[in-house]
């Protein structure tokens, strides 16, 4: 089955399929990509990080589970969790329906944003990354 994956321009991506969006106020929003949600399919359970927690880049900050699989969620940057999307606790399907919008996972105050962004992929690079996974 061939599938199309949405990879919006202007976001940053990890190899583990998280996206990061830099907000106007300098904070960041993160979630899992369309590719990640399609691989998991039918997400039924989410564990979110605690607000106020300090995390390092690529620390596990949560878990996403489908009927069959468990997948860790990694932090794309170092910083502090300042808000989590609690709607996901009751409506984990938002991660399938709108991974870059209503399915956002956490808002963070980054610590070394400029340095961390260099470690992340652009939309173009991420597209190539998921293409490579399929060949």
């Amino acid at each position, binding site marked *: *089955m061939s599938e199309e994956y949405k990879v919006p321009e202007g976001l940053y991506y990890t190899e583990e399929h998280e996206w990061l969006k830099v907000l106007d106020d300098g904070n960041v929003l993160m979630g899992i990509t369309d590719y990640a949600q399609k691989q998991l*399919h*039918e997400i039924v*359970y989410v564990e979110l990080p605690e607000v106020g927690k300090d995390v390092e880049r690529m620390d596990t900050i949560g*878990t996403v589970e*489908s*009927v*069959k699989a*468990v997948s860790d969620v990694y932090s794309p940057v170092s910083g502090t969790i300042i808000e989590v999307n609690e709607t996901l606790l009751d409506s984990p399907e938002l991660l399938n329906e709108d991974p870059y919008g209503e399915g956002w996972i956490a808002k963070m105050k980054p610590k070394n944003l400029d340095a961390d962004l260099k470690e992340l992929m652009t939309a173009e690079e991420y597209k190539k990354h998921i293409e490579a996974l399929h060949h």
Partner: protein
Amino acid sequence: MSLKKTQLYQYHKEHGRLIEFAGFEMPVWFEGIIPEHNAVRNAVGIFDTSHMGRMRAEGPDAERFLNYIVTNDVSALEPGRGLYTVMCNERGGIVDDLIVYKLTPERFFVVYNASNREKDFNWFLRHSEGFDVELHDVSDEIAMIAVQGPRALRTLEKISSRPLSDVDRFQIVETRLSGVEAMAARTGYTGEDGFEVFIFDATLERPEKALQVWNALLEAGEEFGIKPCGLGARDSLRLEAGLCLYGNDIDENINPLEARLRWVVKFKKPSDFIGREALLRIKEEGVKRLRVGIMMEERGIPRKGYEIWDGEGEEKIGVVTSGGYSPTLNVGIAMGYVPREYRKIGTPVRINIRGRLARGKIVKFHPFYDETKYGWRRVEA
């Protein structure tokens, strides 16, 4: 090594998400595990189960042979009837769980797990010495489709040459399905009413008859909202029904008494059987652990291999052998083994979910759901 395929592979490849299971390339889902699961609980779904092992056992000693191999009493079967059973090794450990059908006094049909196809057939061959019985592995010549759900009967009857409502549970009958020679048994692995059908003359090289029946079923069930189902829904349905999966909940290191399959061990049947002595000793001594069902009381999904702890979270008492999300109950459920003293329904336990000791309790698990609302015993409104 390339993966094996079933007679319905072409359909799966075009419509499903494929995975490897027991050496076969099989669909894990077509539309999704949850919609497929719900179709079976509420209406009807079909599963390709052609990867399972199937054997004919024929001859004057066929019955005596099978009764020596399995723990249940094959000699109690009337022609046209089948039974669920296990077969054990000399230590009483479960070699496999299976269904044995008596077609005629000297012709039997045996269905066993895909993951044990070679092991079982070799086991049968090895123990058939001295018996006047011929064994034929027909797994690749006969396709197998499970039609499951409260609308399974009405769906299957639409393409069957004979009515099927008079067929009892575990009865097997000959019929023609959309013109194709077949057998239909009122059995399944979902907890629901339904049939497992065997389509003759459908080999891997000439799978047309299997595809014909599969497509005829999809068309016949359309008015009920039939869905083709993958192994994902098969697993979530059997878990909700509290049915064992070989390799998870039972294996050669688990005996049927601790697996709560005492009811398929017939110590008083007329003949000896492999494992009888060991099982008698285990029965005398009493089992130390038992298979139980657990339902989560807080957020979290128990999975195979997770630790079971006591209610206070003080010590580890067992391990989850099957677990997952129950679409019907919208909660995490599991089966696992715990010491006898924890068996009582309502006993609090904890599940170690990645370091967090989440609360759960021991519940009735065969099945987990309310039998007046779901499953083959349900009270139809």
